[in-house]
Each structure stands twice: as C-alpha cells, then as structure tokens.
C-alpha cells in the first residue's frame, strides 16, 4: 500500500472534521492561492519592513553569522533555504521529498493526518514547509532559523514541516511566524513533526507575532527515542484573533525527556486555547510542562496533560495565570493520567491577579505602583529554560521584553 495515497484518503475523510478543541473556523473564508514569489538567493534583499517584522520573531536576515541555517516561506511558497554548517540539512519539504524516498516513512507519523480538517487541508493542499535534519553525531553550533511569513489577505497558509535529529545529534531551531498584514484576515495552519533519535537533543523555540484578525492552528507532534531530549518553547505576546494548539510528544525510548515552556499573553479580543501533552511510554521517561499565561482582556484556556504508562516515569506540570485588572479570563486545565503504581506525576496551578502584598512590598522599597506592577509582571513572564543556548535564551527574553509595553 502506498502510504502517501493512504494519507490523502484519510485526509479526504477528515476534510470536514472540526477540531476537538477551539473555535471552529470556516475554511471557505480563506483562499489557498497567492502570488508565487520567485526564489531568493539572498534573504537580506527582502524589504526592510519585512525584515523588521521577522526580527520581532527572532529571525535575523542581514547578519546570519550566528545562524547555522535559514529557511523562509512566504505565504505558501518557500523563498530560500540555506545551511552553513556541515551535517545540518535545511531545505523545503517538497525538495526533501524528491531527494529522500525514505521521508515517506516519516510522513504523518507524529501528527495524525486525519486529526481534524486543518491537518487534512495541509495534506490535501500538498503544503510546503521546511525539512531540517541533523546527521548522526552532528551538533548545531548556532541555531537554524525558519520564518513562516503570511503576506496575502484572506490566505490560508498551509505548512508541513519535518525535523529529524539523527542519533547523537543536537539541533537548535528558532522558528518565527509572523505577518505583514495589518487589519486583514488570514489563517496559519502549521503542521510540524519532530523525530528525535537515540541520544539526540532538539530545542525548538517558536515565536509568534500576528494581528488581531489572524486565526492560527498549529498542529505539532514529536517522537523521542532513548535518551533523547525535546525542549519546546513557545512565546506569543501580540494580539491574535484565535489560536488553538495542543502539541503532543510521545517519549517512546527509555529516559526520553520532553520539556514544554510557554509564555502567552491575550489582549482584548484574543481567544487562546494553548496546551501541551506528553505521553511517557518508556521506563524512566520524563516530562515537564511549564506555562505562563497573562491576560489584559482576552480569554485563555491553558492546558497541560501528562500520561505515565511505564515504570519510573516522572512528570511535572506547572500552570500559572495572571489576570491584570482589565478583565479577561484564564481557564487552567492541568491533567495527569497514570496507569502504573511506579510513577511520579505532579502538578501545580494558580490563577489570579497580582497579590496586593507583593505590590506593597515593592512600594515599600520606593517603587511606584506602576513600577511595582511592571517588575512583578516582568518576573512572571521570565521563564528560566534549562538547556537553551544563551543566544536563543537572549532572543526569547528580548521578544518578551519588547512586548511588555503592550501588556502594561
């Protein structure tokens, strides 16, 4: 049986299937066709406006010395892909499919093609995206950067990415998704599959910056083998109309580890349903899910799910939500599921406004009420991420800091 055909059949069956979570989006409101730009050998030739927008999500195009590779997709067309380090491959997924027959074995293995109508649409539209691979034993010195850029009004940007870290390799990726659209609608459908082989490490830092008319439906899945590590970070600080994502990682090898960190902010009019799931299926596997959610008027559902199905697995889930005095809602749903006695799963969740006594404590040190609030909010959004290279950590904090004024 041809797996590609099978995937398409399954996608057709699911093409009308609403997602289990999040507001349903009428796909008929969006078009798939956009003007196809010609390939660009040098991404620094993009307009300064586009480069500035991409910089907001950590993509640096003028000086790429501290990047191991670059991939840019404009709407539904890959614009450029390059790599500057041996052992690291960066190319459009369409190109990778032509180059590697074996890629079919990975296709839709970490994300179900028939999960919902969004995954189905990505398959049925033969979506492009990036293919990033670290060959066995190779380690990225600098992160690979990938930008998914939406620039055509009412377009559904369909993306299918595959990341493979071969045995003993190490891959750091910064993925920025953003738009040049102002006050116009668009839809971003991004499927990302991660395969982390024995002893490999992947850190994936995703920064989003949309506009209040854009709907976003990422669909991500990861499979982590023995002694592998997947570290996934997500930051959304700018308004978006509707975002729903609930990525899943399956730890299938002994001592495989996954860590999810997310920092999200919802302005008035934004509706966010953001979760992370970890399924621990092998002895000694570990998961940590840490989320920080802040609302200045928007609605946030923040989810976390860890399932322990093997001996000596460990999981911890931490969910903290902050409601500033401007309305909004945060609904925290931490879930733990254990199927064995010999497991250790825990969670803590807290939602509320800033404690008055904390503000007063800082005021007693001479800070004004506004300064005290800003200091506490800044601290709330600061997530210490173990294992992230310093350059990415700095980028992450810069992205958060740049958006502080929108929140406060």
């Amino acid at each position, binding site marked *: 049986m041809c797996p590609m055909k099978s995937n398409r059949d399954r996608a057709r069956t699911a093409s009308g299937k609403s997602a289990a979570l999040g507001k349903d989006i009428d796909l008929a409101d969006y078009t798939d066709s956009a003007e196809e730009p010609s390939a660009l050998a040098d991404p620094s030739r993009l307009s300064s406006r586009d480069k500035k927008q991409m910089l907001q999500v950590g993509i640096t195009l003028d000086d790429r010395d501290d990047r191991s590779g670059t991939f840019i997709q404009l709407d539904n067309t890959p614009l450029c892909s390059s790599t500057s380090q041996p052992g690291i491959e960066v190319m459009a997924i369409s190109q990778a499919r032509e180059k590697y027959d074996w890629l079919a074995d990975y296709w839709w293995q970490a994300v179900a093609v028939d999960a919902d109508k969004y995954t189905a649409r990505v398959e049925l539209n033969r979506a492009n995206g990036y293919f990033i691979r670290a060959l066995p034993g190779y380690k990225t010195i600098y992160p690979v950067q990938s930008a998914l850029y939406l620039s055509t009004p009412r377009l559904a940007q369909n993306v299918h990415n595959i990341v493979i870290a071969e045995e003993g390799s190490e891959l750091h990726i910064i993925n920025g998704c953003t738009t040049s659209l102002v006050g116009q609608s668009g839809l971003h459908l991004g499927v990302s599959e991660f395969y982390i082989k024995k002893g490999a490490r992947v850190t994936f830092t995703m920064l989003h910056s949309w506009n209040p008319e854009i709907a976003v439906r990422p669909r991500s899945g990861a499979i982590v083998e023995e002694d592998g590590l997947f570290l996934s970070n997500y930051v959304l600080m700018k308004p978006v109309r509707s975002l729903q994502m609930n990525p899943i990682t399956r730890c299938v090898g002994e001592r495989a580890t996954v860590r999810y960190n997310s920092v999200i902010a919802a302005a008035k009019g934004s509706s966010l349903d953001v979760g992370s799931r970890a399924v621990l299926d092998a002895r000694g596997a570990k998961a940590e899910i840490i989320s920080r959610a802040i609302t200045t008027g928007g609605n946030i559902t923040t989810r976390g799910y860890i399932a322990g199905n093997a001996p000596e697995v460990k999981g911890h889930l931490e969910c903290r939500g902050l409601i500033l005095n401007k309305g909004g809602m945060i609904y925290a749903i931490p879930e733990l599921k254990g199927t064995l006695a010999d497991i250790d799963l825990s969670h803590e969740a807290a939602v509320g406004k800033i404690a008055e*006594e904390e503000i007063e404590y800082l005021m007693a040190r001479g*800070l004004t009420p506004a300064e005290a609030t800003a*200091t506490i909010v800044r*601290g709330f959004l*600061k997530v210490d991420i173990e294992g992230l290279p310093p350059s990415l950590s700095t980028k992450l904090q810069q992205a958060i800091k740049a958006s502080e004024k929108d929140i406060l």
Partner: protein
Amino acid sequence: MLKIRQLTVEVGGKEIIHRVNLTIKTGETEVLFGPNGSGKTTLLAAIMGLPKYQVTSGSITFRGKDITGLSLDERARLGIGMAFQRPPVVRGVKTQDMLTACFGKRRGKPDVIQLAREANLEDFLDRDVNYQFSGGEIKRSEMMQLLAQRPELVLLDEPGSGVDLVNIALIGRLINELLEKDCPILERRCMGLIITHSGDILNYVNARNGYVMVDGRIIGEGDPHEILKTIREVGYERCRKCAR
C-alpha cells in the same frame, strides 16, 4: 527627627493604636517592647504607610514634614525603610533585581555582590525574592535590601526572631551599619525604631531608649535594658495592669 503625635490607627475598622506619642531624634535608636497583639507591628506599618493601616487621627512628622497623608512609596522615597517580619514571596523577581530596585534612582549602580557578601547571601542573588528562604535567610535578606535602599528612618520588625546565635550577630552588625553606629551621633543621618519581643538583638545593637506598648498604648519608657529586665522579672501582665 520623627515625631508621632496622638496617633490613632485602625485596621479593618477596628482601632488598634490609641493616641500614641513617640519621638526619635536623628542618630538615635529606640526600641519598642510589647506582648503579642499589643499593636507594635501596626505602629510600624502605619509609620511606613501600608494601606491596610489607616490613620484616623493624629500626625506623623518626618524631618519636619507632615507625612500622614503620603502614600507608601512616597514615604519610602522620602527615606523611610522597613524590614518586614513576614515578607511575601515574589516569584519571578530575582533577589539581585530587587536590590537594584531598592537602590532606586540614585547615581551609579549598587554593588549587589558586595551587599550579598555582607549579608552572607551570595548564593541567593539568582533566586526569587524570599522563595524557599529559611526564617534567618529572610531576616538577612530584609537587612540586605535596606542596605541597598539606605533609608534614614529604619523600621525593624523583630529582626532577631527565628535567627540562630551566629546569624543574630551578623544581623546586629548589619543593623549597626544601617544606623551608622560607627559614626559619632551628631554626624549620623539615620534613626531607628526596632520592635523586639525577646530583646536578644539588644546584645548587639545599642539603643538609647525603650518604649513599652500594651493594648495599643505606650505605657512607659526608659532604658531599654532596664525595661527588658523588668519584663523578664514581672512579665507584661503587670505592665498591662499598670496601664489600666
């Protein structure tokens, strides 16, 4: 100089402090004794200006300025600082960032490492403020923050409680530094008011005068060591009876 005149303070609509008078001259340190619930912490909090503690009558004058109507942060910026007895944990805010905040808008940058070294808290700079600190560590952290803030009126709420013998000597040294005890009295800018329940801190800090507060009233004053001796001999119950 700090002058408190006929001060009455309410908490949650209940009058806790009744027409209290108290004066602290620049360069001097006063001690406030009293049993649990007598109103000592309420008095300090009212001087600091914590919003929950409402002054319903009387006045607080600091360096000739009536500060009764000033907000908490305005008083802090005017030079009043307080070491909290049970400060809150502030998750996400690092202790070193708190020290920088305490330093305020003064010229230059605080030497946070030196401050931490003095308070024996070098390993705590990268930790969230008060998060998983022991009782003694909290006390030292409070003193360290005040050293960064450099207030001219230092309000200390039980600085020695829950602190072991080695660290209480350290706390004593930090208080003396805050209150400029190594300077001649006429050259000092600072003054202090220290609440103590057990009096242990008096072994390390010289105080000129002591007040006894019972049921929200100052019922006596005098040499702090004499007062402590009397309290140890006859207890607060006798003081309470005297007050009536």
